[in-house]
């Protein structure tokens, strides 16, 4: 893993991609250069922006372009994401990255990404990379309601993959959850990112079918680089381990599923 870089990135594009959800592209070649799918960036507005929420926030890298652009999926949950979602082209964001462990994609298996809500973000990058390597990759993407579904046309444009959409209210795509009615006959590598109950269900699914699963977890984060030890998750051995440096991607067997 290369050492993280601190850099200001210029916002190039901000487009609304669903209710309260934005796709933001930032020019940041020094971070883009080494970024790998599953890694994240701390995004903030810097110390002099006294009106903004204080801490930066971690975001999975959603896209990396050859020209040094990075793409991020930003959904408004609270004050921090509201501030970041309000940036305009020409604004600068303070960025720290790339951070954390990426997904590891075994060559011998196809890849099935199980994405819940903003958990879609890392799989945009995974999908694009896997496609460009000629890998078979599926993106199964669920939201509670259709209005929250990230623009499927944008998913296709970023990844080249036709997403398999699921909504709980059935208003878009298939009614149901990302774990419902999956064709796992080719014994794929499962990757999952989303809310905790969804990750637990994905872990159960992987155990039931004896399939390998990597999960990208989310926990409140302070520093992003392993010093504050704020972002811990419980390991299978019963120890608190840092999601920023030891994760955010873990083999599901490394974690305690309580």
């Amino acid at each position: 893993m290369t050492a993280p870089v601190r850099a200001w990135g210029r916002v190039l594009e901000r487009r609304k991609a669903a209710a309260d959800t934005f796709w933001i592209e930032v020019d940041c070649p020094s971070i883009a250069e080494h970024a790998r799918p599953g890694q994240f960036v701390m995004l903030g507005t810097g110390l002099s922006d006294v009106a903004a929420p204080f801490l930066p926030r971690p975001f999975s890298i959603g896209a990396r372009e050859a020209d040094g652009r990075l793409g991020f999926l930003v959904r408004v949950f609270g004050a921090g994401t509201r501030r970041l979602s309000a940036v305009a082209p020409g604004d600068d964001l303070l960025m720290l990255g790339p951070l954390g462990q990426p997904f590891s994609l075994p060559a011998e298996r196809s890849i099935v990404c199980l994405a819940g809500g903003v958990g879609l973000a890392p799989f945009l990058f995974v999908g694009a990379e896997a496609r460009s390597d000629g890998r078979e990759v599926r993106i199964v993407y669920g939201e509670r309601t259709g209005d929250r579904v990230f623009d499927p046309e944008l998913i296709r444009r970023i990844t080249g993959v036709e997403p398999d959409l699921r909504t709980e209210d059935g208003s878009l795509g298939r009614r149901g959850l990302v774990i419902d009615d999956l064709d796992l006959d080719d014994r794929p590598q499962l990757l999952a990112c989303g809310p905790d109950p969804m990750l637990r269900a994905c872990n159960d699914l992987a155990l039931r079918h004896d399939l390998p699963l990597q999960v990208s977890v989310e926990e409140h984060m302070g520093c992003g680089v392993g010093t504050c030890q704020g972002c811990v998750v419980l390991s299978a051995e019963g120890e608190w381990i840092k999601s920023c440096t030891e994760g955010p991607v873990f083999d599901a067997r490394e974690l305690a599923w309580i």
Partner: protein
Amino acid sequence: MDLSQRLLGATFQSPVLLASGTCGYGEEYASLIPLDEIGGLVTKAVSLEPRPGNPPHRVAETPGGMINAIGLQNVGLERFRSEKLPWLRENLRSASVLINVVGHSAEDYEAVVSGLDSDDGFLGYEINVSCPNVKDGTLFGTDEQALSALVNGLRALTERPLVVKLTPNVPDIGVYARICEEAGADGLSAINTFPGMLIDVEGRRPVIGNVSGGVSGPAILPMGVYLTWRAAAVVSIPVIGIGGIRSGSDALQYILAGASLVQVGTALFVDPSAPVQVQAGIAEYMERHDVARVADLVGALTIPGRD
């Protein structure tokens, strides 16, 4: 223009240090902060035995800062000596290192200091007294007798600089500052975090896994400046100012209030270049005000009508 400060038997090349708990053991920030260009760093707390730490959430945003309840998760004395101290020894040349020490009993603290004292690679100790004493559950830093006995005991064990990090959670910090000085402390750090709590109203539960935590960041700057001023006024040992510093001007408030050094902590999380920016801000101020040495600014506050 001279940013250096002579105190604690050493020369700090700048008055800006990194605060304990925010910079790990230095290595984590090595690619992001030019550690050898700042005054120094205070390590994450070291306890006698490894500590597992608290359940999540451990951190959360608060207005103008953050709350944390990490639970002093650390690798313990022996692994600190074998895994962390060598990196500091080998990689820091001109920055000074203070090792932050915690314990549940006076014996714990004494064992850590005794265990480290003959090692190379650090200047001295910062004693974290914002910890409950297993004997009666009160914090060392809020119990006059326990604090005095603790510092006295540690003083007998080491010739190295002994800095006590004061808790703000007392009615008069001056009383505790004097107790530390009389017991043989070489310096004081003012202040540790303020106790606080956040509630998730939708879930009707505490946000922080440990229920309460310590509040840091710009929100506590005025309290830190005040308590630094109070402490510095009643002791003749140097005071290190801590709390919400993110700019040269913030640091200068502490210095004018009487701090000989400052520590930058939570601001690192917003921008790892914060300590360098703080240092540059102090230098810019000195140039603008034609101040030759940082020492000339320490305690240089004037109070109209009183001076």
